[in-house]
């Protein structure tokens, strides 16, 4: 118990509490607005944001006034915060004393948490890259013209649910876990547990092919693992494609093949994260695909 109280009031970590609360507060606001707009549209009305520029007001003074007010409030809030709480400063840097656990800045803790489940090149390099590229790709792969400029769920169910899942669940929850539930040796500690610096947990993990009785480091093990990963992506892409094609989906026609492949690759990469976490936590599965150069 003492640890969680310690963490909670540990310098930077109050920021993460603020982050979690603020993100979920605004998510609730967004969803409430979306539901309100969806209801309006069902009645045949249009949300005011959806109508293009009929009711215009002048920037000066109406917008500028608000901007100044907000700037004053933010400054005042920061001043109060700065008076009440000191910025963290620990002991002089000492390369000989490694803190345990040693944590990255809080916004990278989601990636650090992923290190438990993936090789560092996936958790620290590939996933961040995919996140950035995936974010940049959004406006070019989301070709749904509806829901531009106003909150709505009904008109863009897939887009809203995927993005909200990725941000609200994967990104924020992983950060919260990294900050509040990871203790010495990056082991999981519940808030009421005491950290024990010298605990050694004998965790026996198996590679996927070992479940089938194949040595994962052998050539056949590598090929089996590789086939499973390839099959995961292939089936994930082909099955929805076939289903949509059979239904003569207009969305598929509009998307085109390249967009479709990009969307489904990004989507299944994202879903791969919770799947791998689940496999690790429940079945103690370490790697699915082992090669001499990299592991997945």
């Amino acid at each position, binding site marked *: 118990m003492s640890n969680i109280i310690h963490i909670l009031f540990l310098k930077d970590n109050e920021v993460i509490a603020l982050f979690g609360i603020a993100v979920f507060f605004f998510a609730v606001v967004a969803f409430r607005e979306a539901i309100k707009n969806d209801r309006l549209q069902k009645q045949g009305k249009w949300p005011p944001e959806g109508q293009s520029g009929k009711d215009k007001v002048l920037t*000066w003074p109406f*917008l500028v006034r*608000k901007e100044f007010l*907000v700037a004053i409030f*933010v400054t005042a809030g920061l*001043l109060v915060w700065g008076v009440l709480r000191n910025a963290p400063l620990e002991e002089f840097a000492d390369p000989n004393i490694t803190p345990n656990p040693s944590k990255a*800045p809080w916004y990278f803790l989601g990636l650090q948490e992923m290190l438990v489940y993936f090789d560092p090149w996936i958790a620290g390099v590939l996933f961040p890259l995919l996140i950035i590229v995936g974010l940049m790709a959004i*406006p070019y792969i989301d070709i749904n013209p509806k829901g*531009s400029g106003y909150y709505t769920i009904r008109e863009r169910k897939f887009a809203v649910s995927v993005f909200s899942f990725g941000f609200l669940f994967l990104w924020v929850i992983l950060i919260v876990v990294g900050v509040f539930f990871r203790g010495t040796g990056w082991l999981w500690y519940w808030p009421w547990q005491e950290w024990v610096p010298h605990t050694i947990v004998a965790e026996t993990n198996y590679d996927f092919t070992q479940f089938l009785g194949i040595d994962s480091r052998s050539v056949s093990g590598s090929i089996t693992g590789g086939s499973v990963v390839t099959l995961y992506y292939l089936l994930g892409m082909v099955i929805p494609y076939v289903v949509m094609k059979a239904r003569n989906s207009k969305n598929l026609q509009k998307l085109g093949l390249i967009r479709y492949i990009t969307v489904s690759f990004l989507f299944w990469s994202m879903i791969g994260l919770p799947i791998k976490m689940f496999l690790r936590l429940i079945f103690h599965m370490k790697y699915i695909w082992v090669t001499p150069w*990299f592991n997945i």
Partner: protein
Amino acid sequence: MDKEKDEKIKRYVTSSQIWKSIFRRKHDDTKRSRVLAVVGNFFLHLHPVSLSRHALALKYTWCMGGITFFLFLFLTLTGVYLMFYYHPSIGEAYWDIKDLHYSVPFGKILRNIHRWGGHLMVITVMIHMYRVFMTGSYKAPREFNWLIGVGLLVLTLLLSFTGYLLTWDQLGVWAITVGTNMAGATPLLGHEGPFGEQLGMTAHNDVRFALLGGSSVEKNALLRAYVWHCIAIPLFVALLIGVHLWRVRKDGFSGSL
């Protein structure tokens, strides 16, 4: 009687050559003056002259983009103040922070708000992005501005990240150690990443080495973090913010088109 006097003074001041040379408009409540207030002012003219009424509503934009921009200005100002008292060398950095804390006038509170403001900027950037997504504001013709926004998100994270090291305390140095060790795992470019070894990457020539200016977090890493944090990244951010805001104005401010 007094009112008359006030009017007289006002007329005298506003008709002077000095006043007219600064403000190119009358300060009255006509539509023309209000339009000129935005068009004729360098700082305000990043705004459109008018905007839809709904875009003013706090519940629509949450004001998160504006707050982020304001925080960037705020952090630049407080950062410059801190720079007056800070040496980017490992013998002095930590003690300069101590000085800021205990002997520099307002040093403590300015360092505090610089740090909290930085954290807040990371938070508001993310929430701003979530809002833009939820209102579908990245859709045509605003696709490219979303791209610039993603670039600004990355730069904001890097700004905050490079600032971590400057205190040269245990927290900063080890956070940077963890962070840059991940860079060492970059495929092809890192000595611990897949195919890195085959391409001749070692701890002395890979991407992590380039970031740190060495094979471990030492004096070169501090200098690099300092230059990135105080000069290089803010320059890029300022440029991208300029383009970002300009495109907001050109593409129409909030709502459907």
